[in-house]
């Protein structure tokens, strides 16, 4: 149950995490577009420029590749930069610095260096922004060795995983959900679960749903309806991070239910679900009662028109209709 007075929104949680890191560690610097007086396109930077000044909250020109590279160069030489990429779609402009530089330096240089950088960006759709402002591209980054990936589904994880990532010596990509920015919850005093551990949000005996970020909420809603209206007992797992990927928690659940479904917001082909389905098939083949199912967006750009966007992006309704006859 949400409490308006003590709870914080997902966006406030992110803002609080950045603010606390800037306050507690002078090596932390923040780069991004419009993060000054404007407070960031979605408001994640609100109040930070006023509080910490322009030398640490560095309003950057629209040059994603190079300000990400500058942050990587700064990380290589002793700072702990946070980078905001305004929309996840724009991370395409910074791919060279992320893929060929920041995530490879430690390995290529024989372990001499660390690159403690956090790139945080709002991904996903549901806000009628159209094809270049709504993508879920995290699946691409599963194939980038050396990169940690967080996909928080709630305010508490959004805050504490971000704080952990800033202090961790590895490069992190934190994919926030812009659709979840307004959702509220308790932040608590720290991580409820260790980094790299998935959370079983709802126990169930018949189907395991493996999901993350916004699809956690759609899956939880679907699970309630499936139980109430169809008598199907669904377990829901929130992965929380895609790297590390906590397959053990997934396998333990699938061994119990014998049925696995992966729900993600991004495109079906070559996605996060494809990877997890493979792992489940490789490790739980003897236990599976049916093939692993993937629920994802079709291999289509995300359209703007509300009717079309709602048709393309997975939802509780679609999860229910695909699973009500799954047993």
């Amino acid at each position, binding site marked *: 149950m949400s409490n308006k007075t003590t709870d914080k929104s997902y966006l406030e949680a992110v803002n609080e995490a950045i603010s606390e890191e800037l306050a507690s560690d002078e090596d932390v*610097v923040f780069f991004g577009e419009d993060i000054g007086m404007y407070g960031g396109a979605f408001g994640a930077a609100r109040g930070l420029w006023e509080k910490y000044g322009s030398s640490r909250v560095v309003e950057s020109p629209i040059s994603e590749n190079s300000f990400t590279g500058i942050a*990587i160069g700064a990380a*290589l030489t002793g700072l702990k930069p946070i980078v905001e990429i305004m929309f996840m779609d724009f991370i395409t402009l910074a791919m060279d610095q992320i893929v060929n530089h920041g995530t490879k330096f*430690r390995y290529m240089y*024989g*372990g001499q260096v660390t690159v403690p950088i956090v790139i945080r960006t709002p991904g996903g759709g549901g806000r009628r922004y159209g094809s270049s402002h709504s993508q879920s591209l995290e699946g691409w980054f599963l194939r980038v060795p050396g990169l940690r990936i967080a996909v928080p589904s709630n305010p508490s994880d959004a805050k504490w995983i971000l704080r952990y990532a800033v202090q961790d010596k590895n490069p992190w990509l934190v994919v926030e959900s812009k659709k979840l920015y307004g959702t509220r919850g308790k932040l608590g005093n720290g991580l409820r679960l260790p980094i790299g551990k998935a959370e079983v949000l709802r126990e169930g005996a018949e189907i395991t749903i493996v999901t993350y970020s916004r699809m956690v909420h759609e899956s939880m809603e679907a699970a309630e309806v499936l139980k109430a209206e169809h008598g199907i007992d669904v377990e829901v797992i929130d992965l929380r991070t895609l790297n590390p990927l906590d397959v053990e928690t997934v396998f333990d659940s699938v061994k119990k239910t014998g049925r696995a479904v992966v729900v993600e917001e991004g495109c079906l082909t070559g996605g996060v679900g494809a990877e997890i389905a493979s792992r489940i098939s490789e490790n739980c083949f003897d236990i599976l009662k049916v093939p692993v199912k993937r629920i994802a967006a079709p291999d289509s750009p995300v359209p703007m028109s509300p009717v079309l966007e709602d048709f393309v992006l997975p939802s509780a309704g679609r999860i229910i209709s695909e699973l009500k006859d799954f047993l």
Partner: protein
Amino acid sequence: MIDIKEFDRELLLKLYKTMVLIRLFEKKIEYGFSRNQIHGTTHLCIGQEGTAVGVCSHLRDTDYAVSTHRGHGHSIGKGLEPLPLMAEVMGKQGGYCKGKGGTQHVAFLKKGFLGTNGITGGGLPIATGAAFTIKQKKRDDISVSFFGDGAVAQGTFHESLNMASLWNLPVLFVCENNMYGMSTHVSKTVSGGSIAERGAAYGIESISLDGMNVLEVYEKTGELIKKMRGGGGPKLIECHTYRYSGHSKSDMRIYRTREEENEYKKKCPIKRLQKEMIEAGVETEEKFVTIQKEISITMTDVYQEALDMPFPDTSEALKEIFFE
């Protein structure tokens, strides 16, 4: 005009020896490929030694440098030792990066050398970011970004110069214009005048130098660096130079004439300095013969020693992907 008489004899000898060391180091790499003892690819800077040495001779260990795919000169100029560098080029465990990086990805942080770089233009933001750290920590060091004429067509060139200027970062952009981005002549890739002139668009003081003249590079770079330390902001140098070898080991150089190559070989920065030092009475011809012989013997030993080193154990392949 550069007057050699104003240079200290020891400094002249140091500049000379470092250029010869780079030249003979790379000759050994060329030899290694011909004997099938070195694998992969390599990009030699033979002919360009004057820019690497003229710039790097001003740098402290706490200054940073980010290099390019053509980076052996910058590596040695920044103080890396030939043996672990050769071992790295060969992919040996005893290399600076345990053989995992190779020629295009070798770094040595203790000397402020942030790495050669396999992506054209990829190093500019990295060097600019290192300059950001210097400014943030209120140090009086500088960061040097080496790149070629090919890299100025990349977005990172424009983006990095822009931010370096906006944020007044102590980064020295050094363009080694050897006239060819792989095979493509600079006249086909750079519009609107010289590369040095582009600095003005970003409010960056820029100069154009004869990269085949190490003394000119040394003197003019020194003047710029003096202005940069302690808050002077970014500067840009364009060094006109020439690589005698092809772009990489497999390049047959069909895009340029042997006559052009011979013209530039007459301008060899090593021969030029040697001639000027003899004419100025600083050193005798015999001294240079001795220096060359000594470095040649050293390089033969370095080559053999690196060749005899073991390759890394396969267990190394999956280490250091993350900090654990």
